[in-house]
């Protein structure tokens, strides 16, 4: 009786392409061409850095942080160049990396979800450009987006603003197509409720301001 390499699942060598990712051996061996990877990432940057930056900016609501994270995402893309199986999937792959960068940062900082937007960047006075962005992001919708869970927010941004298809969305979020669609469904309801809450709070604040402007009238707030 002998081992039959064709039927044992232990073909020579032991390593086989994984069902869960690229061939680990290839990625671990450092065999890919660095110049080729560098050129590829440069081309990818030229094509997609604007939208990746925009996505990270919308996720984090911080221009400087978004720039840092965009840089981080492309460096990670370079380092993980060998995990890109098909060049035609590069955009979704890049969004996946950016999405993970965002979630890592959110998890680490625990800041985004309920942090009120102040318009101040970290450690410095806001620039004119920053103030413009602040104004751009001051609407109900942005505040509502900031209130919903980050994965739901990511799903909405990627689907509605960044035009990812269903399969691209699933790839970027690192979930199945079914799960991505379910996440998007929950996100729409979360956003609807968050917007309603935002508008209710805004109405209440407006009523309070109106009451304060009228002398002799007690400040009453609709509840």
């Amino acid at each position, binding site marked *: 009786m002998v081992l039959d390499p064709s039927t044992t*699942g*232990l073909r020579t060598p032991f390593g086989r392409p994984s069902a869960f990712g690229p061939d680990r051996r290839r990625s671990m061996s450092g065999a890919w061409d660095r110049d080729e990877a560098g050129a590829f990432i440069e081309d990818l940057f030229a094509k997609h850095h604007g939208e990746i930056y925009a996505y990270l900016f919308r996720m984090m609501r911080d221009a400087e942080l978004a720039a840092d994270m965009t840089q981080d995402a492309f460096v990670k893309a370079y380092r993980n160049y060998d995990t890109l199986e098909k060049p035609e999937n590069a955009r979704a792959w890049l969004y996946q990396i950016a999405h993970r960068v965002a979630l890592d940062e959110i998890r680490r900082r625990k800041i985004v979800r309920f942090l009120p937007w102040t318009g101040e960047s970290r450690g410095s006075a806001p620039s004119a450009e920053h103030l413009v962005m602040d104004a751009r992001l001051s609407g109900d919708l942005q505040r509502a987006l900031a209130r919903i869970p980050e994965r739901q927010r990511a799903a909405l941004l990627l689907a509605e603003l960044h035009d990812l298809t269903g399969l691209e969305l699933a790839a970027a979020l*690192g979930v199945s197509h079914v799960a991505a669609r379910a996440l998007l469904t929950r996100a729409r309801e979360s956003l609807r409720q968050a917007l309603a809450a935002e508008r209710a709070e805004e109405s209440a604040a407006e009523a309070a301001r109106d009451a304060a402007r009228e002398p002799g009238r007690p400040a009453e707030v609709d509840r």
Partner: protein
Amino acid sequence: MSRFMRLRRRPDDWSDAHERARRRLAERLDGPLGLTEATWLDEHLVGCAACTAIAADYEADRLALRAMRDDRPEPPRDLWARTAAGIEAAAGTRGAEDKVRRSLPLGALSGVAVMVIVVGVSLLSGGISIDQHGTVTGEDPSGEGPGLASLDPNPEGPVQPTPIVVGEREVAWVDKGPDGLSRLQVVVDEVCPAEGKSGCPTVSDAARQQLAIVSAPKQIVGSPDRTQAVAISKSAAAGDELVVVALVDATATPAPSSQPTASPSPVASDAASPEPSARASATTEPRASATVPAASAPLPSAAVASIEPSATPTQTAAARLAIATGIEVVGQSAAFSSSGGWFAFTARPADDATRTDVYVWRVGDAQAHAVTTDGQSYFASWDGEALIASRPDDPDTADSDPTTVSIDPATATESDAGDVWRPAVDGSGELAIVWDGSLRSSEDGRGWVPAEGSLELRAWSDTGAQPGDGDARQRRVTDRAPRDFDVRWDQTGEWVAVWLADEDDATVGRLTLYHVDRDEVRLEEVDGAPVDVPALSGFSIGDGRLAWATPRGQGGESSRIQIAAWSETDVGIVESSPGEDPIVIR
């Protein structure tokens, strides 16, 4: 109400028609509904102003979101310069950061022999001889004898592989024999190099011990001292049944005893130790010990049928103790504590599919009992004698971050152990492989599975997983969410095997063996060690052996037991002849 007391609703269990309509309205924005649901929704909207208003809200929100496209923020002008500098720096350090590929590390192999129990392997024959002690020796085509065996440095060399001497260690499995399920036990002292193209003999005849198990188990988990195992089988009634069976050393010289023991005979089919058939049935052998009370709260919704509960399991093949019935065991993580004094597993009552808790059995007790009550907890691993369990932080949502607790199994006292999912802690309590990321409700709505994050090696302490240092690639097993995973360490803490379930079928997956650089907290792949090999759920690792069962081949090829073994310098492989669908002891 405690958040642990709330039950999650199943995805299709609509509380009312409006909720159903709301869900379908949102879904409709991303693709057409099925005809049935579309028709139902249209009819519902005709008579429901509130839902019609929500439909308008969804549309308006979508338009507002899309309007944001016109206000795309512009990146800073120096972004490429910064990024290029980062890439240049990464290129310079990449070589040093890549995970180490290496030959085997030097280090003494020590500890007790590994035991592998496999169900369903057919009788094996031929190829390898077995001596009177059950020791398997391979054919030696070189004629040089095993003492001169070494790994052939030339993979294109002779067709007949030169065996690798790995030192005698026992390997055992369970076979469906004429009298029921039996354990086969062999001693493997040689394996073939991974590059061996053919000619490597299969493991063959073995000493046998009949086991008091009626139906083929789904899992078998052995105790650290190999004196007993817990078999998890489908019950004739609802759910699963957990039965403790005593094991004996089938290759040892039998001591005079009035109790039946397995024969050390090298003849497999003749070595079975026949047992009274009544032993197999809990109901036919009432004993006074069946009334031994459990140490803690009884198992919810679970009946108990016990026989011979004993703090010191007897060395008879007949000992059998049912510690739990009426439950459904969840996942692959069931395990004995390092001392062998406790056994833990995840389960849900068979009559309440949404509540998942951690159960423990103290060796000697009559029954297992739930040690958590929140209905959302999963057993992760043992940290010494402390039980590590994970649960979703917010179980009322479909997505949640995990939280982990350390539990004293005797008192059920919990202490926080960080926010990772199902850490598999090594025997020293210093390292763990954890899912660091989020969870999502499983497709069937009955449990939780990894969503986004990575499975990776981390330093471990009483406070849980420590932040990862250095290059995450050197610690990472995968950054794709597996449907399920099973991580087991060997006794030295220098080797760890990771099984990742396939996306479509959680009973099969891929198995990888890593060497662990404990000082640098990184995973290393070793030439010749299995990487992503197909494997059924359930494997055994310990004492220089990793054993698993291969899935059935697409061409009708039956499953085999495969055993990777390593010496101080080499890794090799030996396997059984084809058999039934085997399940290896964990």
